């Protein structure tokens, strides 16, 4: 069982562990998101992503989660369950990112560019919100992210 994002293969991450971690905090985290009329990971970001694009896109998304969404979140996460689940997700995202090596060759430019445009849709929507509200919303949408990632998980 491993992730196969197009050419990028990722072992050593058990998707079930991520699901269980997120499920333990889903209600707590999503209840804090009051901006219900905004969805960051919209269909235009994740729908019909080609295999070739997927490695670029997942890398951009997970790096953004690690660098921006999760930043300082651990300080605010008073609830112990959230802190523990948060740590599980964050550390497994570190493993995934460390194993993603998308090709940098020129002929892949159009693919990487398409993935970048999708990511920018997400990032722009994120930046239109107050940073804390945006972090909470993006964190609450990890179920949407994992659902998309599951499509690339080979049982």
């Amino acid at each position, binding site marked *: 069982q491993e992730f196969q994002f197009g050419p990028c293969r990722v072992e050593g991450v058990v*998707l*079930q562990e991520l*699901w*269980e971690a*997120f*499920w333990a905090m*889903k*209600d707590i985290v*999503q*209840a804090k*998101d009051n901006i*219900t*009329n*905004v*969805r960051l990971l*919209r*269909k235009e970001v994740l729908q019909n992503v080609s295999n070739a694009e997927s490695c670029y896109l997942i890398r951009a998304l997970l790096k953004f989660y690690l660098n921006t969404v999760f930043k300082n979140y651990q300080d605010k996460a008073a609830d112990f369950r959230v802190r523990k689940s948060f740590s599980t997700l964050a550390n497994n995202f570190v493993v995934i990112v460390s194993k993603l090596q998308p090709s940098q060759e020129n002929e892949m430019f159009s693919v990487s560019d398409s993935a970048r445009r999708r990511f920018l849709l997400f990032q722009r929507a994120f930046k239109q919100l107050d940073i804390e509200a945006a972090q909470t919303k993006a964190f*609450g949408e990890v*179920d*949407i992210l994992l*659902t998309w990632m*599951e499509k690339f998980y080979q*049982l």
Partner: protein
Amino acid sequence: AVPCVSGGLPKPTNITFFSINMRNILQWSPPEGLQEAELTYTVQYFIRYGQKKWLNKSECRNINRTCCDLSVETSDYEHQYYAKVKAIWETNCSKWAETGRFYPFLETQIGPPEVALSTDEKSISIVLTAPEKWKRNPEESSISMQQIYSNLKYNVSVYNAKSNRTWSQCVTNRTLVLSWLEPDTLYCVRVETFVPGPPRLAQPSEKQCVRTQKDQTSALK
């Protein structure tokens, strides 16, 4: 409708979606301490997470029951939804009680499969049919839950009544033949569906029993 005094009543409690095979029923309990009162309820649903509007569910305006079928309104299972309900009593009404974010694709229960057994002397063949997704009306074409969840698996457990032994097998395809069984023996089969992903309730099928036929060779002696 006559406007009511909001907040005059406590809110309904335990508001949640009960979902199986994408049939999504909003259900709740009466407000604390008002279980016996003659209350009515009104339901609204949020068109979808990421959109703006709360809409009335007309069939669930001023109803007495504590449930409301929102399957139509939540049928695009790749989206997320909210719903809310308030209690009304004469000119008083409660504030809205709201669900958490409901994601049918991840939260619907997968019902038990249909299990067809046929037997001969020493074998039982089991044919499994995945449950169907809920549909608005019988004329609509059927969609199998297997089409929605391509990684759906079956956990088949077989009980041998003579040896009082049970063993199980995890299969992905629909047919399974148990061969070299003992003749004239009662075997019982129960099947549960399983989809990898978030923790999900699963309903096993009813236990079905079948007896293998008598051994023809001993019958001829």
